[in-house]
């Protein structure tokens, strides 16, 4: 980090009034980076970033002497990655926690990612094929189960059918203001089997949603908002990504999760075109994919490991909040990003209109 700061100061002095400084800046930066061996890795914010720092970045530096610099960004940094690659500014070397949808978009729009070529490595083979492709490898799984207040239900809700059953489970509800996952939930509530969810039967899904609409007190846009709603007692049940309620429950909030038919997605590593540190990126990815390393993240935040060997390093109790727990995988489904990529525009129009009506 000290080098960045140094170069930042030198750039600042150069930039006083002179545009020449701006042009000279990238070369100063790049050369400094090449010498000190550091990787700049796009990283999500918050507790997940903290956990990754402790479980991946610091041990990697201890083992190799190579510093990992986290660069935080919003959820789907597709436009940033495009700009970085197109302008050859090399601001980031690689990305962590990128969704499958982002990777699909980047591959579709042009030549922004590099093939990692790691498929024959032993540690990569430990990871089920479903979590990887030739451009990206999954290192974590997030999921949407049903979060409910333990203190409000004698008989806790078990699944999405219960969530939609306002007679047997009275109480206020919140849902995500986005059709992704919401329509899947509506279909599960209407009795559709996991294997039949995709392609989504839209008419059936919206009809099912019509039933719950009057009972949804709020439609959340950020997961913390959902947690705020349920911990404040504004609502009693809400579907939200599991790492958020888990963290809140660890802090004493009376929350519990119902995992039947959870809907999950994969966070992936990918290497950006134009990096000068391709080999180091590969070395770093292999380091993080080890079961023991992934377990280090899973112990701190409820982001589940993709390497099944990680569960050897995780207590059975902790495994109850992790989506790749075999018990949860049996009834859960992965978000079908291919379906969504093809249909999302039309569905978004319909969903937004339905919400306003």
């Amino acid at each position, binding site marked *: 980090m000290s080098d*960045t700061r140094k170069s*930042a100061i030198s*750039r*600042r002095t150069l*930039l006083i009034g002179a545009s020449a*400084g*701006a042009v000279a*800046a990238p070369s100063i*930066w790049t050369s400094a980076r090449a010498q000190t061996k550091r990787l700049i890795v*796009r990283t999500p*914010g*918050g*507790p*997940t970033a903290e956990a990754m720092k402790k479980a991946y970045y610091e041990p990697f530096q201890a083992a190799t002497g190579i510093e990992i610099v*986290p*660069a*935080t*960004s*919003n*959820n789907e940094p*597709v*436009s*940033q990655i495009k*700009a970085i690659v*197109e*302008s050859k*500014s090399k*601001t*980031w070397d690689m990305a962590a926690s990128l969704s499958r*949808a*982002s990777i699909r*978009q980047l591959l579709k729009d042009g030549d922004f990612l590099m093939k990692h070529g790691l498929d024959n490595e032993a540690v990569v083979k430990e990871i089920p094929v479903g979590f990887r492709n030739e451009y990206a490898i999954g290192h974590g799984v997030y999921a949407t189960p049903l979060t409910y207040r333990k203190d409000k239900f004698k008989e806790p809700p078990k699944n999405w059918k219960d969530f939609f059953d306002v007679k047997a489970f009275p109480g206020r509800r919140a849902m995500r*203001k*986005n059709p992704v996952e919401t329509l899947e939930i509506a279909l599960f509530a209407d009795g559709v089997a996991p294997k039949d969810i995709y392609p989504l039967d839209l008419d059936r899904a919206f009809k099912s949603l019509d039933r719950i609409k009057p009972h*949804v*007190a*709020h*439609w959340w*846009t*950020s*997961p*913390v*908002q959902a947690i*705020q709603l349920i*911990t*404040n*007692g*504004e609502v009693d049940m809400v579907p939200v990504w599991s790492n958020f309620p888990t963290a*809140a429950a660890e*802090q*004493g*909030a009376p929350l519990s999760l119902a995992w039947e038919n959870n809907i999950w997605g994969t966070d992936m590593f990918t290497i950006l075109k134009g990096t000068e540190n391709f080999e180091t990126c590969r070395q770093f990815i292999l380091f993080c994919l080890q079961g023991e390393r992934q377990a280090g993240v899973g112990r701190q935040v409820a982001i589940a490991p993709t390497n099944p060997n990680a569960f050897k390093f995780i207590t059975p109790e902790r495994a109850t909040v992790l989506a790749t727990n075999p018990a949860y995988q049996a009834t859960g489904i992965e978000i079908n990003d291919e379906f969504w990529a093809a249909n*999302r*525009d039309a569905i*978004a*129009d*319909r969903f*937004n*209109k339905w919400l*306003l009506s």
Partner: protein
Amino acid sequence: MSLAASSRGAGRPSRLRQFTGRWGKLAPVLFFLLLLILYPVGKLLSLSFQGPGGVFSLQAYERLFASSVYVQVMVVTLKISFWTTLATVVISYPVARAIARLPGATRNRLMFWVQLSFWCSFLIRTFGWMVLLNRNGFISQTLQYLQIVDGPIDLLYSAPSVIVGMTHAMVPLCILTMVPVMEGIDENLSKAGMTLGGRPGSVFWRVYFPLSLPGVTAGALLVFITSLGFFIVPAFLGSRHETMITQLIIEQVQEYLNWGFAGALSLLLLVAALVIFTIYDRLLGISTLTGSSDRGVKAGAGPGWAGLIGLKICAGLGHVSDMLFSAIDRIFGNRGAGKPRRSGAGLEWAVVLAILAFLILPALIMVPVSFTAGSRINWPPEGFSLRWYQGLLDSPVWLQAATRSVIVALGAATLAMLIGTPAAFAIARQKLPGRTLILALVLSPLIIPRMVIAVALFYFYAQIGLVGSYAGLIVGHAVLAIPYVVITVMAVLKSYDTRYDQAAWNLGARPTQTLRFITLPLIKGGLISAFLFALITSFDELTIALFVTGGLTTTLPKQMWDDAINVATPILAAASTLLLVFVAVITLLIHRLQTKEQK
């Protein structure tokens, strides 16, 4: 008299000098905005005309009008912005008037409370409203405790709660725009009106109010245009019905990754804003804003039809308030003809204090929350502890972020003043071809959604190597601050009597001397307000910072946002409380210094 000549103070200038005199003051702002707004944003918006494979296509626009939903959302956006503007102007006016008319110490005290709420991050204020209005929040629990209601009441998630949240965010901006204009109004004019037999209500509506109109129109315009771009307040305080257009734009960018359609939606917003802008100009007259002083004289000689209608309305309002005042006087038995204003003055104070309480409440509610021993932003706080302050002090990230924010804000505000002030002089005083167009360009950073500017700047910066630098952040924030600077300075110039300058010239002062010793001291209040706006715009700015830092460095709002979207712990409340104390101390120090100077 040629304005170009007068501004140079020389005899007959050459064509070249006339040209530079006319455009010299505008050149920096035009260059800056064309390079940093029009070029990158235009490039980005052109994506909306691209179909698959990069060929020209109107697909995005066909989609925009195929479903009624987008026009519907646009209408909701306009409605909410309209009500917010109306509420903001009505609430701001009495406070601004009180501040402008009161003597030094009391004035400073009022100003202090207004500024205090202004400095408090928009994120904190939104959380503050959630704590206040929540079903189990402060107001609901207090009312239940007082047995006014039986059970929890739903105050959140409705159009009124969104408008309350947005109005709260906009009132300080509006007050600080109005005050400099009102300070320029000669109180003797109202007194003259009374001496001539006008009753207080009529005097106010027929004398004072029309004179304060430039401040009102400037404030309303800033508020309306800023309101169009709100997205966090409706997302946190609104129901599914209060969806605003910027929310959809951000959804397209962040969740659907559809830049073409986001561009089309942005263009819809832009067009709507420009249409409103034009109608507003025709009816209420941004002409009051852009009009040069000689046009004002003409208007005095023979007002246009809009002006006539305005005068009639003011006269009508004067009658109504006169009747109200006398009714109040009759009820409270205060009939003495010698003191007709007493009940009015008491009422005025009550209103002003109530508004100040409204302004400061969401930030104040965070103070007890910050001492909670629990880990949620809840009401009531659970127990007492200093753990969240400990957390703040233990993490160097917060302090670094705060320091960086201060440096960037000072840099951005200075740059925006240097570029914006000359531009305001040029637009307010010179005859310019296409003045409305220039004004629209200057206001464009307010109208174009910040998310769009942020990504456009990121593309641009990546090419010239400014991502992650101080300079990039300062320049980006200066762009956003320029409209506030220009509007505020223009508003004070409008009520500025140019005859002072002419007097100085007659006495032999050179133009620079006139500027330094006459003009600038006279418009000092407006300049300070403008600088303050610029400072706060940068200090509280999140979206641009999220992008142009490249994620490598952090600012205070970015650090707060990171906490707010990932965990939302009371560390936010602790940060907000410390910020409140810090700002309070600084403001008090400045006021102390000013008072000393006056002595």
